[in-house]
């Protein structure tokens, strides 16, 4: 058995694996629960689903807070997933870094837009 500590330690791979594994599941669970909460309100019997009822679903404060949380969870979830894709398929370090930065910009931009839409309701 070769030495696997100190300066001989194998440091390939990712030490952040457990944290990402867990956050991916926590954020996924949040989004799944949100889907159920939204679906219940959409199919709830009442007036036909038009603008008033649809916008009304998102206008209550608790729904805004919940939706906001889910938007952040989604951005985090997408970051972990898309970064995994780049890490698996893109080997040149410079290109990978560029793609990761572009992913961050993309996700932060989308999050900002979604939150803006949500909070001006």
């Amino acid at each position, binding site marked *: 058995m*070769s030495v696997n500590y100190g300066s001989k330690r194998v440091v390939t791979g990712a030490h952040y694996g457990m944290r990402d594994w867990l956050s991916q*599941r926590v954020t996924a669970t949040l989004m799944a629960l949100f889907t159920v909460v939204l679906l219940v309100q959409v199919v709830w019997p009442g007036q036909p689903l*038009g603008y008033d009822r649809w*916008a009304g679903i998102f206008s209550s404060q608790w729904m805004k807070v919940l939706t906001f949380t889910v938007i952040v969870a989604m951005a985090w979830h*997408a970051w972990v*997933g*898309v970064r995994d894709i780049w890490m698996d398929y893109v*080997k040149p370090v410079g290109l990978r870094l560029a793609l990761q930065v572009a992913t961050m910009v993309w996700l932060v931009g*989308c999050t900002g837009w979604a939150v803006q*839409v949500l909070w001006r309701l």
Partner: protein
Amino acid sequence: MPEITKQRPGTMRLVDALQYRLPLAGVVSILHRASGAIMFALLPFVIWLFDVSVTSEISYEQFTAAFTAGIGFLPGWFIKLVVLALIWAFLHHAIAGVRHLWMDMTHSVALSQGRQSAVFTLASSLLLTVLLGARLFGLY
């Protein structure tokens, strides 16, 4: 060099990967990734739909018109196809995700369980996509 690094195979290229015949669990796995990538790429479109659908009654007209008159030079049927792709991506990703949670919580990782849950994931996401797609295209 430690033993463990010596045992590693070389870099696998896409042409090598395509030589493998994937088991159904593998198909679910690669589609989980593909569906996630689709949703990531179309995120601005989804937020735009959310934006116009909730902002005002006038913008709501824009929302419904997207599916009939289209957006710009893109016809309505094309928008419906894109939304159909998003519906499938969401369903497959969500069901495959719940499959992961179920495997983690109940340690259901035997070969037969993995195969059965993979069949369930593929079948249920496709069935729901067909049902919602038929509604989207006005078949019922």
